[in-house]
C-alpha cells in the first residue's frame, strides 16, 4: 500500500478556501519582501511592526486606513458589478472625476441652501458618473466599440476637462492665480469623525451601496439578467434579455458609484477642484484589483477595499516612518499582487492524498 499525491481540479472553491488562499498570497509576499528591507538596512521585524502599529494598531492609524478605503469601496462595488456582467470598465478614474466636477459645480455655482446642498452634490455626482459610464455602454452595444478602449480614452478626456476647468473658467478668485477653484462653502463640506479625517457620510453611502448592489444582484430580475449576461452571451440571447438595457443599467450604476466616490473626495478631503492627478491617485485602477479580489461580490469588495486602504497606509508609513524610497511602495504593491495572483492556482487545484494499491485503480481516499 502506498500513498500518493493527486492533483484534482476543483471547479468552485469554497468561500473559506478563497479567503485562506488570498491570505496565503499576502503572507508569501510579505516574506518575499524581506530582502528588499534588508537592502535598505531596515530590519523586516521593525518594518512590519511599525506598519502594524501605525496602521491598525492605533485609532489614528485605523482611521487613515478607513479614509483611504472609502473611494476604493465605492469604485470597487461598482466595478464588481460591471465585471459580473463582463463589461470591462477601466474608466472608473474618469467617472470619479466626473462626479467631482459635478459636485464642484453644484457647490460653487448654485444657490441651494444648506441642508440640501450636500445631497444635491451627491445626486449630481452620481448622475455625472452615470452618464460618463453609460456612454461606453451605448457605444459598445450600438456601434461595437470595445469598452476597454472607450473607457480608457474617456479617462484621459475627463482629466483634461478638469485641467481646463481649473486653469480657465473655474479658476478660483482667492487662489492667487494657481490652478484651483475657490474653497467650498461650509455647507458643502462633509462632517468628519472627530479627531480623524474620515468623512463618514461617504462611508455610510459606500456600505449602503454595497448592500443595495448585492440585493439587486441576488434578488431582482435585473440582477438575474446581469448574471446571465456575464456568464454566457448565448444563454442571454436565448432568454431574450435586452442587452442594451442591462449594460446601460450596469454602467449607470458602476459609473454612478464612482461618481459618488468623486463627490466624497471633493466634499470630504479636498474641498475644491484641483489638478486631476492629485484628486484620484489611481483609485479607479486600484479598484479594478479590489473588485477582482472580491471575485465580483459587492460585499466582499468592502473588505478588499479595506485591505488596499491598509496597503496604501503601509506605503505612507514605509516612506515617512521607515524612510524607504518612495518607489518601494510600487514594488511592494506589485509583489503582493503577484503572489495573490499566483496563489489563485491553489484555488483551482485540490491536493488529495490517496491510498493506492499497485495493480488496482486508485480509489479516492481522504
Amino acid at each position, binding site marked *: 500500500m502506498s500513498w500518493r499525491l493527486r492533483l484534482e481540479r476543483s471547479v468552485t472553491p469554497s468561500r473559506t478556501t478563497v479567503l485562506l488562499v488570498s491570505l496565503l498570497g499576502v503572507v508569501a509576499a510579505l516574506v518575499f519582501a524581506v530582502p528588499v528591507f534588508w537592502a535598505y538596512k531596515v530590519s523586516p521585524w521593525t518594518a512590519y511592526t511599525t506598519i502594524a502599529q501605525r496602521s491598525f494598531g492605533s485609532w489614528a492609524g485605523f482611521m487613515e486606513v478607513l479614509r483611504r478605503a472609502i473611494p476604493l469601496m465605492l469604485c470597487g462595488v461598482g466595478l464588481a458589478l460591471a465585471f459580473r456582467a463582463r463589461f470591462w470598465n477601466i474608466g472608473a478614474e474618469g467617472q470619479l472625476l466626473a462626479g467631482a466636477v459635478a459636485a464642484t459645480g453644484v457647490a460653487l455655482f448654485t444657490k441651494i441652501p444648506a441642508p440640501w446642498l450636500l445631497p444635491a452634490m451627491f445626486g449630481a455626482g452620481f448622475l455625472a458618473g452615470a452618464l460618463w459610464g453609460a456612454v461606453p455602454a451605448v457605444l459598445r452595444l450600438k456601434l*461595437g466599440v*470595445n469598452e476597454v478602449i472607450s473607457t480608457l480614452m*474617456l479617462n484621459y478626456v475627463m482629466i483634461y476637462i478638469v485641467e481646463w476647468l481649473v486653469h480657465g473658467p473655474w479658476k478660483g478668485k482667492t487662489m492667487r492665480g494657481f490652478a484651483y477653484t475657490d474653497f467650498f462653502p461650509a455647507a458643502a463640506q462633509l462632517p468628519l469623525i472627530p479627531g480623524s479625517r474620515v468623512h463618514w457620510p461617504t462611508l455610510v453611502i459606500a456600505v449602503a451601496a454595497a448592500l443595495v448592489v448585492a440585493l439587486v444582484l441576488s434578488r431582482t430580475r435585473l440582477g438575474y439578467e446581469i448574471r446571465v449576461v456575464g456568464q454566457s452571451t448565448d444563454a442571454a440571447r436565448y432568454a431574450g434579455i435586452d442587452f442594451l438595457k442591462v449594460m446601460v443599467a450596469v454602467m449607470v450604476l458602476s459609473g454612478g458609484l464612482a461618481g459618488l466616490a468623486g463627490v466624497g473626495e471633493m466634499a470630504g478631503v479636498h474641498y475644491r477642484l484641483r489638478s486631476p492627478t492629485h484628486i484620484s491617485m489611481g483609485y479607479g485602477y486600484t479598484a479594478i484589483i479590489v473588485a477582482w479580489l472580491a471575485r465580483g461580490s459587492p460585499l466582499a469588495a468592502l473588505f478588499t477595499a479595506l485591505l488596499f486602504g491598509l496597503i496604501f497606509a503601509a506605503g505612507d508609513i514605509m516612506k515617512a516612518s521607515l524612510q524607504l524610497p518612495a518607489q518601494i511602495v510600487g514594488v*511592494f*504593491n506589485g509583489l503582493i499582487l503577484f503572489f495573490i495572483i499566483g496563489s489563485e492556482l491553489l484555488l483551482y487545484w485540490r491536493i488529495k492524498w490517496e491510498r493506492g494499491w499497485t495493480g488496482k485503480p486508485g480509489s479516492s481516499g481522504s
Partner: protein
Amino acid sequence: MDWQTWLIGIVGRALAYGTPLLWATLGEVYAERAGVVNLGIEGMMAMGALMAFATAQTTGDPWLGLLAALAVGGVLALLHAFLTVTLRANQYVSGLSLTLLGLGLSGLLGRGWEGIALRAPLPNVTIPGLASIPLLGPMLFQDESILTYLGLLLAVVLWIVLWRTRWGIVIRAVGEAPGAADAVGINVALVRYLCVVLGGLLAGVAGGYLSVVYRPAWTEGMSAGMGWVVIALTIFASWDPLQAVGGALLFGALYHLSFRLQQWVAPELLKLMPYAFAIVVLAFVGLGKAQRRRGAPAGLGLPYVRGER
C-alpha cells in the same frame, strides 16, 4: 509658413513620436491575437528605458543598450505568460501588477542615473539620394531614427506572417478558438508563451528608444503613460500590424499638433484631442460595418484550460 514645411514637420514628428508606439503596439497585437491581454506594457517600457540607458551609458554602445532593453522586456513578459498561461491567473490583474512592479522597480533602480546626459545616444540618419526627392525626401528620409525604419519593416514582416503564413494561422486559431486548436494538435500554451514574450521584447525596445533615441537621458516615469496608449492603439488598429502603423502615426501627429495649434485653441482641450479622436473614429468605423464583426479574437482575455469547454 507654407504647407510643405508644415507637412514635412508634422510627418517627421509623427514618425518620431510614433516609433515607440508602433514597436510596442506590434508586440501587443501578436500577444492579443494569441488571446492574451498584457496591461503591463507601461512597466515593461519603463524597465526597458532604464536598462537601455544604464547599459548604453556604461558600455558606450547604444545598441547594447537596446539589446538590454529587449531582454528585460522579454523577462517581464515571461513572468506574465507564466502567470496567465500556466497558472491561469486573471490576465488584466497580472498585467496591472507588472506595470506597478515595472514602474516601481525602474524608479528604485534608476536612482542615481538621473541628471546625466547619455554619452552614446543612437544618432538619427539621413538616407542619401532618397532624401533629395522633393517633398517626400525631407519628410520621410531625413533625420529619422534607424529604429523608425526597422519598426516599419517589422510591421510589414509581422503582417505577412500573420496573414500569409501557417504560423499566422496557428496564432490566430489559438486566439479565436483555443479548444479547436488544441484538438488539432497545436500546443496552445507554447504559442501563447511565444507571442506574449514577443510582445515583451518589442515593448522593451520601445522603452529603450525613449531613453536612447528620443530623449537621451533617464528620468523616473519617462514612459509617461505611453503604455496605456498602446493598449488603446492595439484595439484601434483592429489587431492588424499594418493598421498599427497608421494608428501610431496618427497618434504621433495629433500629439505634436496639440502643441502646434496652441495659438488658436485652448491647450487643455487640444491635449484631449487624440483621445477623443480615437473614440470618434471607432464609433464611425462601427457605424460603417455594423454587420461584419472585425473585432477582438474570441478567446481574448480568457485562460485556456483543456477539457473545460
